[in-house]
């Protein structure tokens, strides 16, 4: 149990949870509008790469973040274009985006920087310090010193909740995700709303990706998102497609990941701990303990000619 009181575990938990939480919140905006988004992984990876490219070429990490977000949003546009106007299967297009991101970033990494990795003088985003928090036992260090993007998660979470549940736009987005035909008969622009949801998912997945490459590090390595986009999707589902739930699930899954890292070299298998997020998600979807319910039209094709 000494492992649970080790501050290192909690520092890692926050660091592991942040990208999962951004990814899950991003996925939420897409799926609440009815577009299944398994492309979070690919968007994250794309942003992680281009954040380094822009941070290095401008020597400004904030422009790096912006570049990463823009690249991720472009991937989101690709997802939207195929999934909504072209009525392609959301899951398959998401897989295409993931594969494309894996290939493009790996390919460009080699063609732009050779086999020695990204430049070592790439700037990274600032780390914030709150020394007065570090006195708290066990979790103090985890709260006192993190990347600026980790602290930014709190206002982003509140804004996500407010946007989704307290603004007309949020209500409209959710109605499109539940039943696009009724939404359209009420005069809403179904495609516009779906697009806005997918674009926000691109922005947030972009932040998650930049966090990986220039938030906690200052470099990009091939496939550095390493399945975090899929864990984010699991957190979104486990959190029942709600901002607070998704963030708590992200913390839980981040904790599992951190625990697995801390358990390396001990008698308990870290791999078995890593299975937990996925198994918990299956249990949640199956309704064995509580039940999660996706937006009713999530993933369904929307054709205007089928309006009633």
């Amino acid at each position: 149990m000494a492992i649970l009181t080790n501050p290192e575990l909690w520092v890692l938990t926050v660091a592991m949870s942040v990208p999962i939480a951004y990814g899950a919140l991003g996925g939420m905006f897409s799926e609440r509008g009815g577009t299944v988004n398994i492309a979070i992984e690919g968007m994250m990876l794309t942003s992680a790469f281009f954040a380094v490219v822009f941070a290095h070429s401008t020597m400004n990490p904030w422009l790096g973040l912006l570049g990463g977000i823009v690249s991720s949003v472009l991937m989101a546009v690709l997802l939207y274009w195929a999934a909504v106007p072209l009525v392609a299967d959301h899951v398959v297009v998401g897989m295409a985006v993931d594969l494309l991101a894996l290939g493009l970033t790996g390919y460009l990494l080699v063609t732009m920087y050779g086999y020695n990795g990204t430049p070592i003088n790439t700037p990274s985003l600032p780390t914030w310090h709150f020394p007065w928090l570090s006195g708290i036992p066990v979790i103090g260090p985890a709260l006192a010193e993190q990347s600026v993007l980790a602290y930014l998660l709190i206002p982003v979470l509140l804004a996500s909740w407010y946007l989704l549940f307290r603004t007309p736009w949020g209500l409209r987005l959710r109605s499109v995700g539940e039943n696009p035909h009724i939404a359209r008969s009420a005069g809403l622009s179904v495609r516009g709303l779906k697009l806005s949801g997918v674009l926000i998912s691109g922005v947030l997945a972009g932040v998650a990706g930049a966090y990986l490459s220039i938030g906690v590090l200052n470099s990009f390595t091939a496939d550095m998102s390493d399945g975090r986009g899929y864990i984010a999707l699991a957190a979104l589902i486990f959190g029942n497609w709600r901002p607070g739930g998704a963030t708590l699930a992200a913390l839980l899954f981040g904790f599992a990941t951190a625990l697995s890292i801390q358990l390396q070299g001990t008698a308990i298998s870290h791999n078995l701990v890593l299975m937990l997020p996925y198994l918990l998600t299956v249990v949640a979807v199956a309704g064995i303990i509580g039940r999660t319910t996706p937006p009713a039209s999530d993933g369904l094709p929307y054709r205007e000619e089928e309006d009633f």
Partner: protein
Amino acid sequence: MRTRSSIEGVVRPLISVLLALVVSSVIMMLTHYSPLIVFSSLISGAFGNLPNFGSTLVDFIPLAVMGVGLAFCFQSGLFNIGAEGQYWVGAFAATLVGVHFASLPLVIHVAFALLAGTVAGAAVAAVPGVLKAYRGAHEVITTMMLSYAAIEFGHYLVESGPLSQPGSIPQSYPFANSASLQPIIPTTQLSAAIFVALAAIVFGAWLLYRTRLGLGIQILGKNPKAARVAGLSVPVLTILGLSISGAFAGLAGGLQMVGVTHQLFDGFSDQFGFTAIVVALLARNNPWAVVPSAMLFAALYSGAQAMQITAGIPVELSFVIQGLIVFFVAADRLLDAAVRGKWLQRPQGPKPVKPALEAKEVG
């Protein structure tokens, strides 16, 4: 009508692949690689000589076997995206059998290992089937999540679990000789597993087109309500559809162990389970069409390795091409839109192709 739809079934995937090649050529030119050199070294890397062709066939085996199983499952309208995990589970089970029972004769030991892989793959895919049939849990989520859990379990098995061989490299004990198929083409890893794979393809096609079960699967896919009215048991078909695709994936995992690696280790898979989904989709879920489709992706894999060695072109380029193929296969309504002239201003309309499509639309 029938000829029209079968022509369409051939032409549309071909156009999707062509579009992917055109767009990837643009990417190559932007990054100062000649598409001509890339494609010629890809092709010669995949088919240029007997050893290269042998290596392509080695990759063809798992892609085709899983692709046929997935095609069967997708025909029912169920989307199993966890083939990767089922492939891993098949590999574990085969390894469990393969490293033990060293006293068995070769054929029996190999058959036993493959059977273990097949059963294990089917069992793990049956879980999402049961959860879908009786709890309404969406199979896309459950197959995906179980797949990642299975892969972590595989890491556990080779790192610290019962199959792990002590030492610094995470890997299992090697297979007994009696469970290891030897190469039939020297200098390649191509073994008699290819014949098992071909038999599996024929079996998959027979199951889908010549049995009551296959008919039920097709009816379920076309119209679940009609299936219910016709007295078919939707829960049973759901569970069978998923577990049969899992059985094929498990068999593929077993074949990989018995025929190629003779040992379980982390990097054995190359994400074939995900690629196999695309193989099935490109084949439009027709088991026979899985053959050319799997061959294309196998060539992209093995050709890319050779391309990196001979021409110094990054192997990742192959993923770009694969991703674009998936994209254009999924978004094949793009073709209809292009015919209607809606997207004509876009650059991806290869001119020689459009008249053929227009003719098809008119005819």
